[in-house]
Every structure is written in structure tokens, then in C-alpha cells.
């Protein structure tokens, strides 16, 4: 297990070094993504100004929501962007390479690609959470809670993308299907959390775990709710087990494309 962890760290380090070689492109991608993300802040702050407070959600909560969302997105896609390429790997037969590797299949696949723009998401997410912490005058307890919830959000995000991209083994034109499912998961996580009530809240908490990424963590920090923390934590563990099981089952469906390639 420790060996696998060291391998993952080594692969991530090499990925970063590789991407950083194109310095200008590297920096522009990070800055561009950070600016790009501010669009959502602008949108939802104007929404709050026009509509007013909904179920206790104010403008600062939106910044917290986007902070959690961007940070978990950024961390997952900077260390494990390879999962997002699973559909391509399966369709082109590149997945053979990972299956033949003596390393853990999921870690090997996840760390096979690095998304530079995801670093922009991390920068954006950290800035948003710092603004959120300052604006709500967070106590030490709330700051620690934010740290814990970032870890939980990352786990939920990771498990969601593992589940979604495992579908690559079941469909022929999987790129489009997985892309759509990912959008179905991601889009609600960027929406105003206070507007999700009743059936919608149930669906996007228990069936599609979009609200576990940002909306519920913000409510936990704001209300210091241990009940919700337990719920989010339990769901994260549940989804983690489910996603690994789905991935392992999905891999069994893989049939090598038998392309004659030379390691490309």
C-alpha cells in the first residue's frame, strides 16, 4: 500500500515537471482557469442580490460553495486526471498498457495524466475558502471543520468520477456518455445550495452526490452541524466502496483492442 502511495506521488511529480516544461502555457492555463471560475461568483452574487436570502444562504456562502467545489475538482483532476481519459484509453486500446503494469490499476490509470488548468481551480478554491473563513469570522473549530470537509469533498468527487468514467467499459461511444453523466453530476454542485429543497435535495444528496461537494459542507460549517457531518462522512465512505467495486466490475468487461502500437 505504501509502495503504491509512493508510486502515485512519483507519477504526480513527473506529470507536474512534464507540464511545467511549457512554462508560458502552464502559467496561462492556471491564471485563465482562475479567472474563468470567477464567472460563477459574479453570477450567483448577482442572483443573491436580486432574489435575496434563500433558506439562510447569503453571498458569502456561495463563495464557500465554489471554494469547496473548485478545490475538490482541482485536487482530483491535478492528481488523477487520467480517470477522465478512461473512455479514450478503452476505445484506443491504451488501457492494455495499464493492465499489464504491476502497479495498482486504478492508481496507475488515474496518475497517467495531469491537467494543468486544475491547478488554477486549486488556487481559486483556496482563495475562495480563505475569503469565506475571513468573512464568516470562522472559529478554530470551523477552520478545522473546513479542512476535514475539503478531504471529504475530494473523496466524494473522486468516487463520483470513478463511478462515472467506469461507464467507459460499457458503452461504445463512451466519451460522450461519460461527459454527459459528469455534467449531470457537476452542474448542480455549482448551483445555489439554498435553492435545493425537498425532492431535489434528496436526489442530489443520495442518488447523485452533487450537494456533498459544496452545498452540504457550507451548511455544516455555517451551522456547525455534527449530524450533517456524519451524514456526509458516511455517504463519502459508502460512495468510495461502491465506486471501487463498480470500477473493478467494469474492468472485467474490458476487451483488448489489440492495436499494434509501440507504447504510445
Amino acid at each position, binding site marked *: 500500500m505504501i509502495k503504491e502511495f509512493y508510486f502515485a506521488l512519483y507519477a504526480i511529480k513527473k506529470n507536474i515537471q512534464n507540464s511545467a516544461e511549457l512554462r508560458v*502555457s502552464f502559467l496561462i492555463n492556471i491564471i485563465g482557469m482562475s479567472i474563468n471560475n470567477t464567472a460563477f461568483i459574479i*453570477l450567483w452574487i448577482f442572483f443573491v442580490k436580486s432574489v435575496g436570502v434563500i433558506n439562510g444562504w447569503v453571498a458569502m456562502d456561495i463563495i464557500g460553495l465554489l471554494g469547496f467545489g473548485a478545490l475538490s475538482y482541482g485536487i482530483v483532476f491535478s492528481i488523477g486526471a487520467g480517470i477522465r481519459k478512461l473512455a479514450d484509453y478503452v476505445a484506443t486500446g491504451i488501457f492494455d498498457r495499464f493492465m499489464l503494469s504491476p502497479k495498482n490499476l486504478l492508481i496507475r490509470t488515474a496518475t497517467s495524466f495531469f491537467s494543468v488548468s486544475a491547478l488554477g481551480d486549486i488556487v481559486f478554491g483556496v482563495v475562495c475558502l480563505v475569503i469565506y473563513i475571513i468573512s464568516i469570522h470562522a472559529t478554530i473549530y470551523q477552520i478545522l471543520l473546513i479542512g476535514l470537509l475539503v478531504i471529504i469533498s475530494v473523496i466524494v468527487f473522486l468516487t463520483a468520477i470513478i463511478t462515472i468514467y467506469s461507464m467507459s467499459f460499457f458503452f461504445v461511444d463512451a466519451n460522450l456518455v461519460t461527459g454527459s453523466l459528469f455534467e449531470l453530476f457537476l452542474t448542480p454542485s455549482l448551483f445555489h445550495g439554498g435553492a435545493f429543497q425537498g425532492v431535489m435535495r434528496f436526489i442530489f444528496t443520495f442518488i447523485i452526490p452533487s450537494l456533498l461537494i459544496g452545498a452540504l459542507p457550507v451548511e455544516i460549517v455555517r451551522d456547525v452541524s455534527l449530524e450533517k457531518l456524519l451524514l456526509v462522512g458516511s455517504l463519502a465512505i459508502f460512495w468510495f466502496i461502491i465506486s471501487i467495486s463498480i470500477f473493478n466490475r467494469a474492468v472485467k468487461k474490458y476487451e483488448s483492442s489489440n492495436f499494434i502500437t509501440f507504447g504510445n
Partner: protein
Amino acid sequence: MKEARLAIKIFKTLFQDCIQYPNRFIVDTIGILARCGILLILYSYVFKLRDGVINNTTFLFVAWSIFFYFSFSILKLRDISKEIMQDVQKGNIEILFSKPIFYLSYRIWWQIGLGIYSFVIITLSMIIALIFIIGLPPTMTIGIFIPTLILTFLCGIILSLFLYTIIGLLSFWIEDINPIFWIVDKTVMILGGSYLPIALFPTFMFKIALWSPFGASQFVTHTVYETWQTNWYQLIEIQLFWIVLLGLVVYFIFKKAKQKISVNGG
């Protein structure tokens, strides 16, 4: 005539492609349900909380305005930037330049053809569904509505294509145009009235949306409001102004880009 033949040929090819691969249509449908459907449900809840009126607008107008934005997005016109970038990065541009067709016109027709099939079917189905679920606002039943909607829709297509073609052409100079694409795309998203409909815009933001090419490319979202009946010609004039200006920019950038190209062979 040659241009029309090229367009028909591309449309025919892509139509057959759509029939052959129905997955894409399903994916587009899931995509619009994920974004537009969820957003409409949320807005209906928010309007109910505020007794049905926010900023002197009701949910009926807002829902149709948001729907028009997302319906327009099914055309995927913005993807022309990435297509041009890929042509440049992969070297396809050399092959396409050597063909007896005008590269930009090929890319533009291809982009329209790629989304038209999903656009027609999903938009028609969604219109019927919306009429049954929430009904039609009175502004959409007056005689002037459909002709002006079509006019502003066509102008929006041309303007969007020019806007995103300019970004795509920058890939002749910049290695990765994605960061620029993201910023322009999000500006269009904000000023076009996607997640926040234009009826809820603050005054200064509404002015920016009105006078910038980013907002002008999505004037289709303005058509459902009462103000459209009195100022539609002014908005279409703004669109025409931007079309001419951005058209000239596309022409000059493309001219420069052609000089920039280096054929490596292989």
C-alpha cells in the same frame, strides 16, 4: 452556388452521421436536462418563495428566456474555436488549405451542421413540453415575435461564429487558446442570461450585455420580455454592427494567419 453545394454536402454527411450514432442525440438531451431542466426547477422554487415575482418579472418569462439560452447552446457554435485549434495543432490545416474550398466557410458550415440535428429535435420537444407545463407568455403570441425571433437567432449564430472563430484563429500565434476561450465563453455565459436571466441583471450589467458582442450574440434571450416589442430593431441593429465589425476582424486575422502558416510536410 459552390458555397451552397458545400453546405448541403456537409449537412447531408453530418445528418447521416447523426442517424448512425444516435448516442450523441441522447447525450445532448441529458446535457440540456442537466443544466436547463435543473435550473428551471430551482427557479420555479425560488419564484414561489418570493410570491411569484422578482424584479417585476414572473417565472414564465424567466423560464422561456433561460430555455432560449440553453436551446441556442445545443448548436455548439463555440466549439469552432477548438476545432480550429486542433486543425492547427495537428497539422490538418495544411491539408484543408490545399483543398479547393474556403477553410473558414468549411469550418462554419461543419459547426452548424454538427449541432443542427440535436438542436431541432430537442428544441421542438422542449417547446412542446414547456407550453404544456408552464404555458406561453403573452409576448410570445403577438405577430412580430416569430419573425424577429428568427432574425435575431440568425444574427446570433453569425455573431457567435465570428466571435469564436477569432479565438480559434489566435491559435496560429498562441500555442494553447483554451484560457482565452474560457474567459470569452464565461463572459458570453454571464451576459447572455444563462444561469442569471437578463430580467434579474443589475442596470450596469444589463448595459454591458446590451452593448457588448458577448451579450449581443445571445439576444435571443431578450425576445420573451415585453421590452422586445419596442426595442427589437435597436437590438438587431446592435447585432448587425457587431457582425460587420467582427466579420472584418475575422477577415484580417485570417489573412495574417495564412501568412503565418508553415507547411512542414511529412
